[in-house]
């Protein structure tokens, strides 16, 4: 059975796309200049900014990749999302107010702009741009992979590649419609839909498996899952588990799709409530990860669901076979919302990096924005599609690589560099380069001496921090002429 046999689901999907398109078209009317295009005119309120941040952060990784990873390694997978309890506060406390203040002083539209303002170095800005592009391609590839899984089920397509191509076409068309103004207001709608999906699917998942205690007991007593499934260290190595916590707990400070939203908020005093809205909304969405993650193994253990051939099918199989058509339609729309909101943010960020940041670093003239922007979207989307086709692993593992690319390269230089004047261009460049090279290097070539279960992203993040402090200890960035340090780092 596919979703195509349940027409209400396809109708819900089409309705969702129509609503988002309508909001996007309405938002286009509010776009008058570059400031509107890139940072929503700095008119966004608390709820718009916080929910836009949430929906840019939460994607196919959470709604499809999470249950899939749980099916593979058990409740250890939750170490990826548990840091949301403090990451909202971490973002605001470390970077939120500074980025917002920066955006009020000068035209700051991207994360490389922030690096340029702080360090005044083309090398640093160029490396940051390269990091943004690399992470964007990887993250977008993960979204395409998730979209392929979903559309394959929605339209009953036999080949995943066809579904992925369809998803690519939808994404590119959606992104070309309008810039960040369309993104941030559609993100608000999508964020609300994601939260509703999280709650509704969690309740259905637990009910379908027979209630909380029966679900947990069924998993613990089964031969194929057993009590280790429920233990944090049951089916994953300690360094994998703690590595997830480290990468996702600290690497959040390097995620441009989230940091960019701080430029948009109209009143910085509202940031006081930002962690509450962000963390609270994320916690609601994550209920789907927990509910489906436990229910699917319980249903498999009870013989009510056939064992999965692909772990990433956990959420769609559950929705197909165990939820009423209306709920499944809502959930599909919610998952689409999660994927599209993140993908749209990333496409815009990648396009800005290619069209604006990279030419500036290379000293080239700025190309005609509209045509160049559309071409950039196609280039970024094309590279992401290539990666998605080649990657045969779990959605969550590609997501970890993508998140880790951003985090390892950008988080140390931003987080410490915006607070410690001694961090100069040399330290920042060393940190970004180390994070990029180590993460991508270990992903492509995993040496035999690296212990089992060690995440490349965790090694890269620790190495990037170490490089930053080592170089800063040797070279005093402030004394070396960090001319822009004084205005930003008081």
């Amino acid at each position, binding site marked *: 059975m596919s979703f195509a046999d349940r027409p209400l689901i396809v109708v819900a999907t089409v309705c969702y796309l129509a609503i988002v398109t309508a909001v996007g078209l309405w938002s286009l009317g509010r776009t008058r200049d570059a400031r509107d295009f890139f940072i929503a005119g700095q008119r966004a309120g608390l709820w718009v900014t916080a929910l836009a941040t949430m929906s840019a952060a939460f994607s196919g990784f959470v709604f499809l990749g999470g249950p899939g990873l749980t099916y593979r390694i058990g409740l250890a997978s939750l170490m990826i999302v548990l840091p949301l309890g403090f990451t909202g*506060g971490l973002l605001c*406390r470390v970077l939120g107010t500074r980025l917002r203040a920066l955006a009020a002083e000068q035209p700051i539209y991207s994360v490389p702009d922030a690096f340029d303002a702080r360090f005044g170095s083309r090398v640093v800005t160029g490396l940051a741009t390269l990091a943004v592009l690399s992470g964007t391609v990887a993250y977008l590839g993960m979204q395409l992979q998730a979209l392929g899984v979903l559309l394959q089920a929605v339209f009953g397509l036999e080949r995943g590649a066809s579904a992925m191509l369809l998803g690519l076409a939808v994404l590119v068309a959606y992104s070309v419609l309008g810039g960040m103004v369309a993104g941030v207001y559609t993100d608000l709608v999508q964020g609300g839909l994601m939260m509703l999906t999280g709650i509704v699917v969690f309740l259905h998942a637990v009910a379908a498996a027979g209630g909380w205690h029966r679900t947990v007991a069924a998993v613990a007593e089964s031969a194929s899952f057993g009590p280790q499934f429920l233990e944090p260290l049951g089916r994953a190595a300690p*360094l994998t588990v703690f590595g997830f916590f480290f990468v996702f707990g600290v690497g959040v400070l390097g995620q441009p799709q989230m940091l960019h939203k701080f430029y948009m908020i109209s009143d910085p005093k509202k940031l*006081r409530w930002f962690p*509450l809205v962000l963390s609270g909304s994320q916690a609601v969405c994550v209920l789907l990860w927990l509910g489906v993650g436990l229910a699917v193994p319980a249903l498999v253990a009870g013989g009510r669901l056939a064992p999965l051939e692909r772990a990433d099918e956990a959420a769609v199989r559950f929705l197909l076979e165990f939820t009423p058509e209306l709920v499944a339609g809502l959930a599909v729309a919610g998952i689409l919302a999660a994927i599209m909101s993140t993908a749209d943010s990333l496409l815009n960020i990648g396009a800005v990096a290619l069209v604006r940041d990279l030419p500036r670093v290379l000293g080239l003239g700025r190309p005609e924005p509209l045509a160049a922007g559309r071409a950039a979207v196609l280039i970024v989307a094309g590279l992401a599609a290539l990666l998605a086709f080649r990657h045969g692993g779990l959605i969550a593992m590609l997501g970890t690589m993508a998140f880790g690319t951003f985090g390892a390269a950008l988080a140390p230089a931003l987080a410490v560099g915006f607070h410690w004047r001694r961090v100069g261009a040399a330290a920042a460049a060393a940190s970004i380069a180390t994070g990029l090279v180590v993460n991508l290097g270990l992903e492509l070539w995993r040496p035999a001496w690296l212990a089992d279960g060690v995440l490349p992203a965790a090694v890269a993040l620790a190495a990037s921090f170490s490089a930053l402090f080592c170089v800063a200890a040797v070279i005093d960035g402030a004394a070396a002429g960090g001319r822009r340090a004084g205005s930003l780092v*008081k």
Partner: protein
Amino acid sequence: MARFSLIALAISSPVLLLALLVGGEAGGFVFAVVAPIVPVGLMALGRDGGPRRFGVVVWLGLLWLSLEAGTLGILFATGRTGGWLGLPAATVWMLVGLGIVPLLLVPWGFAWLWRDEGPDATRSRR
């Protein structure tokens, strides 16, 4: 506080790297103990004065304790029974120490500490 946190971050970064490269149980133990220092240390980088400074120290201290309880609870309670809601003890430590307590403590603490004039993390250490 910012100077102390910079020192803590500067020491913990290579220690974490070494733990990852060494691997095994020893590496896992060291990583679990040291990793919670990093997010707390980063949050301590802001410069706060007056009565808020004491509040921030308490707030971050409680966060650090919760995170350490979570990671150490995972390490030492694995395999033990006596959890909650049918979940084993280590999982309860994980959910409470690394998730629920920070989720309650951090957002509300942030809103309380900056209730008067909004967040002011614009001053750093020299």
